[in-house]
């Protein structure tokens, strides 16, 4: 069974440009999460999808970030326009269950460098 996959593994862009990150969850997992780790800080929650619906986007930093999950399968996270402080590692996770024993499985992350 394939795990959570993320593309690209690394992206280097200039300030003001647009970047789109992609996450393919484990097949059959309705729940998909985005997290981010900025250099030197803790991993922080960004948002949570249940199928194609945004369940919780309380962690999204501002309106330059847009997440979508078309058809409840893969998800994209777009940053437009990118700022220097957006640099960090973006992790995607998926889980099968929500309540009770919610186990989130993570991808390898996308390292975003904004210059």
């Amino acid at each position, binding site marked *: 069974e394939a*795990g959570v996959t993320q593309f690209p593994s690394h992206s280097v862009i200039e300030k003001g440009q647009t970047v789109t990150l992609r996450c393919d969850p484990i097949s059959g997992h309705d729940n998909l*999460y985005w997290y981010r780790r900025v250099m030197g800080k803790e991993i922080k929650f960004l948002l949570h999808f249940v199928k194609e619906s945004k369940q919780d986007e309380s962690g999204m930093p501002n309106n330059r970030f847009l997440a979508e999950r078309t058809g409840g399968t893969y998800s994209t996270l777009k940053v437009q326009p990118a700022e220097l402080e957006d640099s960090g590692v973006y992790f995607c996770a998926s889980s099968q269950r929500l309540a009770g024993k919610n*186990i989130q499985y993570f991808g390898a992350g996308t390292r975003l460098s904004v210059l």
Partner: protein
Amino acid sequence: AQSVTQPDIHITVSEGASLELRCNYSYGATPYLFWYVQSPGQGLQLLLKYFSGDTLVQGIKGFEAEFKRSQSSFNLRKPSVHWSDAAEYFCAVLMDSNYQLIWGAGTKLIIKP
């Protein structure tokens, strides 16, 4: 507010020595606790989890962790480390209100030959 504290940013141990990584949490309800590991160039891999029941939980790669409610701790242990254990280790608690994971800052484990 809910939080997770990993007091050690770096830990260095000799290969073959025992290991204990500390994790303390602040959470009002019964916590669901996790340890994840990130090896160089890899993603976050689940080492072990605690939901309920036996307070000593076994994980992959020979790791175990003990939940101590009285100390609000969930420390990770391994009796004998291997060079391949060099990685960054994260403790996390799941918020059952909104299913977010709250993370500690991570502990980097360095193995001396």
